[in-house]
């Protein structure tokens, strides 16, 4: 007889607390040869303050589009066709582009997937990490660079004073990704949206980056929306998870409950298909 399933309790969701990010009934359409088709349908998700929420899905699930919608950074061929997005008490869909630019970087920040591509190879790291500060707050260059050095320290990059003068290619892959996280944290946003930030990294480096994100949440209370296709990462990092497939959310729940008691067939299939470093469930065929 197996132990009873753990309860589906959302510890960060307390009465009277406003969600950091509240997406309700979001629909996104894509244009192919001038015809608009919905690719994300009726997606509702929330990120509470201080919570790390994971969105797990395979390619084409709409996980990245749904998250980029919160920043209103959809590609040209996509448009938001319905729903409501709120950042705390700010109505995202009602903002002008100017209003969004004020919010991006300051209240919400994006950590993109491939740090090497996201960084300008001809600009020193310090200037790039300090860019959110100079864009939103201005001020003398020296102060910005000092702040950038401190940010590099926060993400455990050793020798931050040398780091700010370096160019991106002088950093390793892991350091580049941490520099991107530093850039995301520059203005202490309410929400970090991380789009598969560890997919291109070695597993040991990934472990460091995940540890760093947890630390940031613990120390600053920053909420994190983490997009990934890796169930292991979700288990390691997240509090609450949404499972997406073909533009819809098929299941949501606390990480403990989802892994112990997956209810939807798709979730179960994902769990069964994910290999683990422990002994294979089925014995391998004879050689």
């Amino acid at each position, binding site marked *: 007889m197996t132990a009873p399933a753990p309860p589906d309790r959302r510890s960060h969701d307390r009465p009277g607390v406003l969600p950091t990010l509240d997406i309700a009934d979001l629909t996104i359409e894509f244009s192919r040869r001038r015809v608009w088709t919905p690719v994300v349908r009726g997606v509702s998700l929330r990120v509470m303050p201080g919570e790390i929420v994971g969105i797990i899905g395979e390619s084409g699930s709409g996980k990245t589009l749904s998250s980029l919608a919160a920043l209103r950074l959809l590609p040209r061929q996509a448009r938001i066709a319905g729903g409501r997005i709120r950042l705390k008490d700010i109505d995202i869909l009602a903002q002008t582009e100017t209003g969004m630019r004020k919010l991006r970087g300051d209240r919400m920040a994006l950590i993109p997937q491939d740090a090497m591509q996201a960084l300008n190879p001809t600009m020193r790291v310090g200037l790039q990490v300090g860019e959110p500060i100079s864009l939103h707050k201005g001020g003398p260059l020296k102060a910005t660079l000092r702040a950038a050095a401190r940010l590099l320290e926060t993400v455990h990059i050793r020798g931050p004073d040398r780091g700010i003068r370096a160019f991106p290619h002088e950093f390793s892959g892991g350091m580049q990704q941490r520099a991107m996280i530093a850039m995301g944290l520059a203005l202490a946003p309410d929400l970090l949206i991380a789009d598969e930030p560890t997919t291109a990294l070695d597993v040991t480096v990934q472990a460091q980056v995940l540890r760093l994100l947890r630390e940031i949440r613990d120390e600053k209370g920053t909420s994190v929306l983490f997009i990934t296709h890796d169930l292991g990462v979700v288990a390691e990092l997240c509090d609450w998870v949404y499972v997406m497939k073909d533009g819809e959310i098929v299941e949501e729940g606390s990480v403990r409950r989802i892994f112990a008691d997956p209810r939807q067939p798709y979730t179960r299939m994902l769990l069964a298909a*994910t290999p683990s470093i*422990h002994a294979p469930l089925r014995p391998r065929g004879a050689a």
Partner: protein
Amino acid sequence: MSGDFLQIDGLAKDFGGSGWFRRSAPVAAVADVTLGVPRGQTLGIVGESGSGKSTLLRMALRLIRPSQGSIRLDGQDIWALSGPRLKAFRRQVQPIFQNPASSFNPRQSIGQILTAPLEVHGIGTRAERREKARDLLARVGLPVDAFDRHPHQLSGGQKQRVAIARAVILQPQVVLADEPTSALDVSVQAQVLELFDATRRELGLTAVFVSHNLAVIRQVSDRVAVMRHGRVVEYGPADQVFADPQHDYTRTLLAAVPDHRKMMRPAREPGGPE
């Protein structure tokens, strides 16, 4: 000295160093690697980026020349072969590569891609080759009309199935796979690994499977070699290496892998918490 069916001894590869305009010290991509794969088994080589695992595989495929050491197939040094015996070697050892998008000539149809190996080695008539290709397409679970399609019309998982079909159409003895499932979604990866394993068993293939993903290596390998900075730091039966790693680096790697299994409830164990 006898060795395993595929035996690698003291293999090394240096890049850079002396050249016309280069003065920097050579970089050892692979240094002093000794490994063996018994016939019919799978050797998994796992390592992070820069570990040299891909370079090692390409030396075994005779695409890159080793600086030192030897690679023997059934006792024969593969780098000593030439002419018809070299061509015979190529028939016996086939690759499967990582990136489904660039593994195939975009201008050719799947049928052409599959019959090309048979053409190159002068096997069968044109009709027989096409027949064989169609047969293989069915065996890897692809629809018959895939024969006339072009690579860009197939999904990543379908392309990797074609890659497996292409690798086995010559009925080789050895398949060398370089991260064949790394670019695939989880569910598709599971299917392709399943297909790889089934094919390997059915044809009695000896395989080398290179990956950075420890969990995948665990699933497919009989023996495992852990590489770091061009050297093998641990080597042994898969169960042993994973259950009782000897080297610090192996332990670090295993500890770093995010593990979801611990949160799942064991399906068949009686009682107990979680």
